[in-house]
């Protein structure tokens, strides 16, 4: 069977599987262990927020899912299929995924970065249209129309032709959100998306994300220090420290009545 058909098959999976499953995932950078045998499941459509002190491994989880980093040990599954790994030559054995395997699967995942990472030499519209045209194979006109809709959703329909460098940080981040959504991801990763913003620009970005959460059934994984936002959008909050989950629970419960001393200390430090 040609590779293309095979990958087509793998995308049609039953919905019973969790959207994301980390199976004893370890990530080391040199001698430094960032994640230590992490088990984690995120259901389809679930909104999960990762909180915890910096260096606790939250961002690494997102970067592993976006394939910006490779796991040291353990396997990541997406939609019940091996994601970080693929079947090897011997039956039942998994080997680290090839670039081709990853390329076929990472499309369903989108990411918004702390530093926006817009393409500075392209207009706002070109930024949003780029991937739908060159990855999904949409026509320019079709992609352009949808890009305008998305830019309207993030409140930037008047900035379509502007260069990203002419925009405020909050506006740039809203373009980045539209750009990620243009790929119609099933899973959206938000990596400290307001951390690089001036305080008065944080609200406009979070409002847009609340709207996205309300209007779509996208699976959300976010790392943030904005506890109000975490409370509004999350079904579940995970408290991280030292590469392990210290505590997890429904947003209100965990934020209002944390069970662990470590969580209490962290929450009082960010409030």
């Amino acid at each position, binding site marked *: 069977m040609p590779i293309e058909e095979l990958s087509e098959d793998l995308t049609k999976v039953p919905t019973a599987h969790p959207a994301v499953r980390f199976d004893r995932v370890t990530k080391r950078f040199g001698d430094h262990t960032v994640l230590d045998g992490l088990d984690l499941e995120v259901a389809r459509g679930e909104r999960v927020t990762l909180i915890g002190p910096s260096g606790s491994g939250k961002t690494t989880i997102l970067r592993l899912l976006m394939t910006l980093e490779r796991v040291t040990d353990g396997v990541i599954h997406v939609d019940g299929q091996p994601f970080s790994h693929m079947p090897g030559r011997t039956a039942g054995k998994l080997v680290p995924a090839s670039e081709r395997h990853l390329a076929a699967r990472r499309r369903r995942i*989108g990411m918004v970065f702390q530093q926006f990472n*817009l*393409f500075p030499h392209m207009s706002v519209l070109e930024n949003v249209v780029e991937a739908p045209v060159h990855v999904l194979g949409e026509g320019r006109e079709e992609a352009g129309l949808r890009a305008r809709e998305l830019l309207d959703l993030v409140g930037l329909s008047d900035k379509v032709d502007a260069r990203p460098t002419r925009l405020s940080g909050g506006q740039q981040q809203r373009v980045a959100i539209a*750009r990620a959504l243009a790929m119609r991801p099933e899973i959206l990763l938000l990596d400290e998306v307001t951390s690089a913003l001036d305080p008065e620009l944080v609200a406009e970005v979070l409002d847009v994300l609340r709207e996205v959460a309300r209007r779509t059934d996208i699976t959300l994984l976010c790392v943030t220090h904005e506890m109000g936002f975490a409370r509004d959008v999350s079904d579940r909050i995970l408290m991280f420290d030292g590469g392990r989950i210290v505590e997890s629970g429904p947003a209100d419960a965990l934020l209002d009545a944390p069970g662990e001393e470590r969580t209490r200390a962290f929450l009082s430090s960010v409030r």
Partner: protein
Amino acid sequence: MWDGEAARAALPTVLEGFGVTLVATVLAFAVAMVMGLVLALAQRGGPAWLALPVRGAAGFVRSTPLLVQLFAAWVLIPGLDAPTLGVLVLGVHYATYLSEVYRTGIDAVPKGQWEACTALSLPRRRVWRAVVLPQAVRNVLPPLGNYAVSMFKETPLLSVITVHEMVHEANTFGSTHFAYLESFTLAAAVFLLASWPTSVLIRRLEARLAH
């Protein structure tokens, strides 16, 4: 000492040579830009088995004199006329420098740009063509311009393989009319008039890109 009559007589010959110099510079620089990019991509984006020999060959060309390369090519590559050969040798020589310039420009593209491309699943070819190279080339426009000027000033070397560029013409005029002072002074003046404004333009460009 200075013979105004002779200078006036030398001017058309020198200017004719300048035409050759200019065409040689433009063509050789075009060769250098394209080939330099290919060399840079082979070293930065290509597989390891390709990168190493390419780096070695480029290093070899860069560390031997252009004059020697011209003579060597003149002797070893038959069947090409002098101007074509000169343009190719000059172009290849400078390509090895420009590949380093491109590499600097590529390395200066922030890591976040690559990560955004991964997050958008852009195919590798598209990443280079639409995202990395446009920014890399923008980063290095000023050094590219400086290399163009310095290549322009090295074209007199082509006279050793009988290309009739400006200095060659000035020399011929000088020997036939015994007016070396006038013909070479004119050639020098034309070089100055062409390079200086170009350098100023490049510096302006540099200042504008810095913002």
